[in-house]
């Protein structure tokens, strides 16, 4: 016969002092703080409990103690398997790095029939081919693409307006698929197009090769057309028609849309979202302001801009939350990517929120003339005259030369968030990224002084805003958990 012992017998947590596992904290609001661990798990605590915990005074029978223990903020005489689990979770967060570059952007041409003021790259659509990518350049670029070890390869056609060089697209798709018969990667294609010049031939080709379409939809007609002028002033109508035609030809889930946020967008959050709801998109990506179209160097203007963008963002997010509470499944994708880092053991593939930076490791850009850039933003920077992030040229350099060049390694190493001032002690570092291109463009160095960085201000505010909303309302938390696991 056995004698059974009570739960207290197995609870040695009060017998001796607890050992803290690595953790950081930051203020959430007033007396409330957020603590985070190496794997990005978080808890919200009042200051008093935080100090108690930090100074070894937290009592083992407190509810806070149990929560900190279960989420791997401390170990004690009862258990230390948290160490193995934290190691596993850390490894899980970093594991996608080993896959290396998955996104390969081909700039098919710089020609475009739109003249959007925020665009830095396009040229007039005048049938000259000097701004078109050649088959020779495409071939060399594909050589590099398949040298990336990534099991999943996404080739994205950008421009200008890539459909203006449709023959090149056909060439690349055909060549890539041929090579993939041996390489056997998970190969996907995307065409980023304004859809204004979409023909049935384009659609038939896309259908045959399972190509995804990504287009621009900045909001309702007046806003969209103001942002995106073209001859005929009908960019919005063409986009809408194009979306419908593409959905019909390729399948509903093969067509996505992105918005570009301009000064004019900042007052129209609800209208923009309504446009996406009306067009039956399952979500929207409320994109940050891009600094590359503006010669913004003064910190004040940056912070003012950022505050207005944050107002815009949270107005939009709260509106979307209300839509969800009312029964509509609709995702805000920026939040979803952050929430994936906060609420799941997985990692996001959003280049801007990666540390080590997503430059080169997450994406590579092959310009029409063969110049290789580490990201789309660095190509825009080059159009403004700054070639800092041009690694080389597909015609002159091989994969190893490009990927091991100091032009890539130096910004990666220097900007690594866990090692730089500000970020290395920031509680939100597990959710954030390092963005050497942005900081170079706005402050002149790869690291940037984070308190002066619009990237930092923006992200910290978003992290705080998401946590506050989750802590305040269980129903919002449930919505966020769904998003985090869906994307």
């Amino acid at each position, binding site marked *: 016969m056995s004698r059974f012992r009570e*739960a207290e017998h197995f609870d040695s947590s009060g017998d001796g002092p607890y050992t803290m596992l690595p953790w950081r904290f930051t203020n959430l609001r007033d007396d409330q703080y957020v603590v985070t661990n190496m794997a990005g798990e978080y808890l919200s605590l009042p200051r008093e409990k935080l100090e108690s915990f930090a100074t070894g005074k937290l009592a083992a029978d407190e509810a806070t103690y149990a929560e900190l223990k279960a989420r791997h903020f401390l170990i004690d005489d009862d258990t230390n398997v948290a160490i193995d689990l934290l190691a596993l979770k850390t490894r899980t967060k970093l594991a996608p790095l080993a896959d290396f570059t998955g996104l390969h952007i081909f700039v098919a041409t710089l020609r475009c029939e739109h003249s959007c003021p925020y665009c830095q790259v396009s040229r007039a659509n005048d049938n000259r081919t000097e701004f078109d990518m050649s088959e020779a350049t495409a071939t060399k670029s594909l050589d590099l693409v398949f040298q990336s070890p990534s099991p999943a390869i996404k080739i994205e056609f950008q421009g200008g307006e890539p459909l203006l060089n449709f023959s090149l697209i056909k060439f690349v798709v055909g060549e890539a698929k041929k090579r993939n018969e041996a390489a056997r990667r998970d190969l996907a294609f995307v065409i980023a197009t304004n859809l204004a010049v979409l023909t049935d031939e384009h659609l038939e080709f896309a259908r045959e090769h399972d190509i995804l379409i990504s287009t621009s939809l900045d909001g309702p007609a007046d806003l969209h057309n103001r942002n995106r002028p073209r001859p005929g002033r009908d960019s919005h109508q063409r986009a809408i028609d194009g979306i419908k035609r593409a959905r019909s030809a390729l399948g509903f889930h093969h067509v996505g849309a992105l918005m570009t946020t301009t000064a004019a967008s900042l007052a129209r959050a609800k209208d923009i979202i309504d446009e996406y709801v009306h067009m039956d998109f399952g979500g929207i990506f409320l994109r940050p302001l891009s600094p590359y179209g503006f010669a913004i160097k003064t910190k004040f203007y940056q912070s003012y801009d950022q505050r207005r963008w944050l107002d815009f963002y949270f107005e939009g997010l709260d509106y979307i939350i209300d839509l969800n509470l009312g029964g509509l499944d609709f995702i805000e994708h920026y939040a979803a990517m952050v929430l994936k880092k906060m609420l*799941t053991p997985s990692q996001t593939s959003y280049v801007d929120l990666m540390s080590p930076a997503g430059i080169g490791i997450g994406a590579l850009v092959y310009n029409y003339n063969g110049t290789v850039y580490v990201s789309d933003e660095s190509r825009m920077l080059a159009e403004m005259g700054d070639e800092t992030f041009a690694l080389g040229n597909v015609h002159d350099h091989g994969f190893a030369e490009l990927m091991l060049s100091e032009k890539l390694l130096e910004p990666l190493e220097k900007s690594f968030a866990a090692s730089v001032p500000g970020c290395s002690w920031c509680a939100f570092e597990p959710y954030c990224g390092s963005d050497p291109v942005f900081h170079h463009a706005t402050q002149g160095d790869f690291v940037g002084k984070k308190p002066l960085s619009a990237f930092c201000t923006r992200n910290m505010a978003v992290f705080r805003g998401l946590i506050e909303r989750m802590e305040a309302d269980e129903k919002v938390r449930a919505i966020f958990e769904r998003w985090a696991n869906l994307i």
Partner: protein
Amino acid sequence: MIPLRARSIAFNDAAIATGGRIMRLSTNLERPAPLRRSEGFVIVDAENIAPGFAWYISCAGEALKGAALDAPSVELPAEFGYLGDGDVISVEPKSGTVRVLFRRVSAYNHFLLTERCNNNCLMCSQPPRAVQDGWIVDEILEALPLIDRSAREIGFTGGEPTLLGERFIELVRATESYLPNTSLHVLSNGRNFANDRLAASVAAVRHHDLMLGIPLYSDLAHLHDYVVQADGAFDETVRGILNLKRHGVRIEIRAVLQRPTTERLPQLARFIARNLLFADHVALMGLEVTGFAKANLNRIWIDPVDYGSELRAAVKILMQAGIKTSIYNSQLCVLPEDLRPYARRSISDWKQEYLPACDGCSVRAKCAGFFATSGMKHSRAITPIFSEAA
């Protein structure tokens, strides 16, 4: 209940002389002679008794009397009338015992590998005994080649199978060799797999379809240790799971739905989703009130209708994280309606039953029913479901 063991059985003199054995049964009058020499014939009626078998088994006294058999034979009570073609039994004339090891028509064939255990769970339905039962392994090794190779799945349980050390690996290897089309589901507390070499050895068998079912009862170590009544069990179990996964072994995480566990069930689900996302399956299991569970009822009993909301929250967290989840051993009427799709008919047929209260229920055929072993202990909310299409 379907009895699997018969005691105080009358064997004839030939049986007592020839001694005990393990054998496959046949009801086939055309069974080829070379096979008859090592099999037992099940007598269904006295007119049709095929000669040349090694043994004769009857569940209807008249049949044997009329047979005038010189061959070893045994007469079983009528409850064993279910025995049929392809079943495997063990006969022990010396102790007067017959045990049924494998039933071909059943989906629930489990082999208890040992009664020894290194845990002492509050709700254990198979209380551990410190006995020298190594003979069980020999018996199973002898039975495996006789089992129908088209069997879908067999299970290994205990006690704690890994206490057998190398012999446990030997058993897994034997199932892979003799039953290459059969899934193997092993129940283990996982603690001994904290020794990486054991985990590596299991993986090295390269069993074609192996899953280890390992229980985790809380996200808090001391509560898990309390349920299994062993200090340090939580850490060992988690390390065991991690080692097994690292070697590519499929893992099912089980949790018995009893009060210390249900009180933190959503937190346990979150813990699994955050730390053990690689789990191939999670099974949330209704309580079998037998063995230690009866003695510890005051510590563990909670009416299933009272943990419905925790169960719903836990299933949602797990499914959302992409982890396959099932609810075992739970009656459909006590589950919230949205959870019924996750319920499985999981109770082994030989100990499964329904209650008079179930009369007229339209979903009875899909419902797990009750543990016959649980006696009268069940939810206060048992009631037939009429509206659903069966």
